[in-house]
């Protein structure tokens, strides 16, 4: 059995678990625990280990999706998770500009671990107070070459589109590497 993996990262509450859940054929295996830290009370429980989803491609190939724990105190796991990944998705909650700086920082951290392609998903675009993509690009200081995609992690279509864009980028990098 061959396996490949894609990592889904981003700040706390940005929608990583939801993103993986939407396309995974197994229930996302995540160690959810009650979190007491004041700042993290926005949500009832938060992922303290990691999310783990699976998409079977055929008899011989499986794609694993790993969600990183968002909180800084677990960032020792990031490097381990990023080992050997095909690429990564940075989830950003489009309705919470106060998390943009952290998202940018997480992006920089992962980019330093591995030279693999990545895309940024502007999540929760279904919400009325979501920022527009152009504004987010500026706020996140994303170069025009970086793919920033609209996303609603609760819906299959946008999640598929984000994954496909990432796969296209990986393919393009491979082809560029050969030339």
């Amino acid at each position, binding site marked *: 059995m*061959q*396996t*490949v993996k894609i990592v889904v990262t981003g700040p706390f509450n940005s929608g990583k678990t939801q993103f993986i859940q939407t*396309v995974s054929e197994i229930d996302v295996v995540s160690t959810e625990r009650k979190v007491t830290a004041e700042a993290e009370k926005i949500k009832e429980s938060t992922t303290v280990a990691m999310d783990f989803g699976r*998409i079977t*491609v*055929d008899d011989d*190939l499986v*794609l694993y999706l790993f969600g990183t724990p968002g909180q800084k105190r677990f960032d020792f796991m990031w490097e381990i998770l990023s*080992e*050997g*990944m*095909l690429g990564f998705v940075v989830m950003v909650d489009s309705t919470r500009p106060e998390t943009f*700086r*952290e998202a*940018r*920082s997480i992006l*920089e*951290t992962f*980019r*330093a671990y*591995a*030279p*693999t*392609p990545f895309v940024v998903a502007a999540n929760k675009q279904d919400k009325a107070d979501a920022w527009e993509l152009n504004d987010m690009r500026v706020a996140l200081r994303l*170069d025009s070459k970086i793919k920033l995609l609209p996303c609603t992690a609760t819906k*299959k279509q946008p999640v*598929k589109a984000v*994954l*496909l864009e990432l*796969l*296209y980028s*990986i*393919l393009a*990098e*491979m082809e560029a*590497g*050969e030339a």
Partner: protein
Amino acid sequence: MALKGNLRDFTITQLLNLINLACKTGTLVIEGPGEVARTAFREGKLAYAQIGQHDDALPTILLKNRKISPAQHKFLQEKATTMNDKELGLLLVNAGYLSQEDVLDSLQAYYVDAVRQLFTWAEGFFRFEQEISPPGDKILVRVDLENLIIEGSRQLREWEHLQEEIPSLDMALKFTDRPGTNLRDINLSVEEWRVVSYVNPQNTMRQIAKATKMNDLEIRRVVYSLLQAGLVEIVRPGGAPVINPKKMFPTSDRVEQKGIMDKLISRIRSL
């Protein structure tokens, strides 16, 4: 309980705060990556500080504070072979060369500066030794810790902010492509110029820091201001990204790797 641990978990500022509040007397010994620092306190006030083997003889400190001339320094250094700091200080004051204030102010400035340097230490083992007093031949001061604590927490916030902006020093820098921007027209500090001269996708920030003798905080500070000015951007060392398909795929065969990508793409499309 002995007060000991790692600066990663307990910062210098927190330690100073504790020493201040508990009016502690003793010596804080910190074993940093390259040097050992000793800072002595009496009843919660800074009394003495020494980092590594830095020359902290009284004549040298007075020279640094421009209280004496290089010629006087040379003369006093010869004296110092037979006299310790206390005796020398007394002699200078009694002979009317310097006021007692001059001597104490210079020492205070020197010790406070040593503590300031400690703020940039992100790592190191510390222990507070109640039994160890400062060296007997040294002139001691009494400096309130409050201002240092405020300064330290400000630095800590800056440090956290900079680490967030520039998490990894293993990345490199390149000039942004902005035709029309002439470096000559931009006002840069001496430190910034030193870093600018090394900007090249081949050099990691860590290497630049080493070459310019800056610590992690200092290099981040300079890079941050260059980033803010839009002069440089962070890139992978070596320039163009080179992905390593060997690690990413279960096979090293390029055709098979492509095949895996095609299968993944059609599978996701079919979801």
